[in-house]
């Protein structure tokens, strides 16, 4: 799995240099039914704001009950633009990946992001995790 992700990352980086895509680095916190999860990601976005990325997230350790799982999630995400109003963007983010390197899950999310400057944007994320609502905050660095 990790090799596959590394290969995908390499391929996307190569594609980015050829087609002039944008690279985005993401850091986020999301409040889910499994507790507060912390995550990181890298996303490649083309000139039509369509993107593909790799995500890692897991429950913040101090929130986990004794013997409970951290629900570590590795996966890919698609970024599909819904609407853009000036610096405000609405994006649909379906994620697909493995929890605990074993359980296949789909996490649909919607991101509302506001571009603070050329390099930085902040956003709210709302989604569905295990049939329960999740919400969180995201900071994105545009490279």
């Amino acid at each position, binding site marked *: 799995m990790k090799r596959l992700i590394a290969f995908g990352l390499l391929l996307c980086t190569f594609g980015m240099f050829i087609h002039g895509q944008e690279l985005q680095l993401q850091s986020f*916190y999301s*409040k889910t*039914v*499994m*507790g*507060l999860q912390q995550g990181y990601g890298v996303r490649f976005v083309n000139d039509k704001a369509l993107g593909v990325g790799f995500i890692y997230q897991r429950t913040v350790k101090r929130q986990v009950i004794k013997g*409970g*799982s951290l*629900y570590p999630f590795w996966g890919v995400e698609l970024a599909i633009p819904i609407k853009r109003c000036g610096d405000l963007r609405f994006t649909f983010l379906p994620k697909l990946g*493995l*929890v*605990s*390197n*074993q*359980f*296949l*899950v*789909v996490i649909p999310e919607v991101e509302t992001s*506001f571009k*603070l*400057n050329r390099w930085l944007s*902040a956003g*709210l994320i709302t989604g569905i995790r*295990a*049939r329960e609502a999740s*919400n*969180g*905050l995201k900071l994105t660095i545009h490279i």
Partner: protein
Amino acid sequence: MKKYLYILLVPWLLLPLYSCEEAIVEPYEQFIIPKGTHSRGFRAQTLQASSLRFDVIFDETAVYETQTIENQHDINKLYGFSDCNSPHHTHSARFGWRWLDGNLEIHAYVYASGERITEFIGIVPLNEPRAYDLTLSDSHYHFHLQGYDPVSIARKSSCNRGLYYMLFPYFGGNEVAPHDIVIQILTKY
């Protein structure tokens, strides 16, 4: 420069992530099996950890009498999951229940390579929560009902990575629910 002022908004945006105290009442989800049906319909959800822990409350609606006497021995399904990338009639593990001889019995209910295996676990009272734990290991399904010894049944699926879909309350057996049946479940993460 004005745009940098938006950074000042960040602490306010962080507020939704902060809770002052834990919720006092834990929300049980109510599953109603309508009269004349086996279940309340399709529901898509996947397992996200190797252990499925939950509390269940049965009430008086769990008392029933089947039309055919032999069907009273049929085991209704409570909660569980299909095993890795398999249909649930091939590989799955669930808790089962039935009303028999004035008691609400809880059983382990497993399909392993298409073979159905059941084992009695214990008896639970009505209107009182009981904790259940169904854990998946490489070789076994481990069932644990609060107050009873754990029961383990061999797992025959060699698949490990993939889709494990959840299985929800289902009445039957052969017969449909003789009246509305209400089961309250609280899944713990």
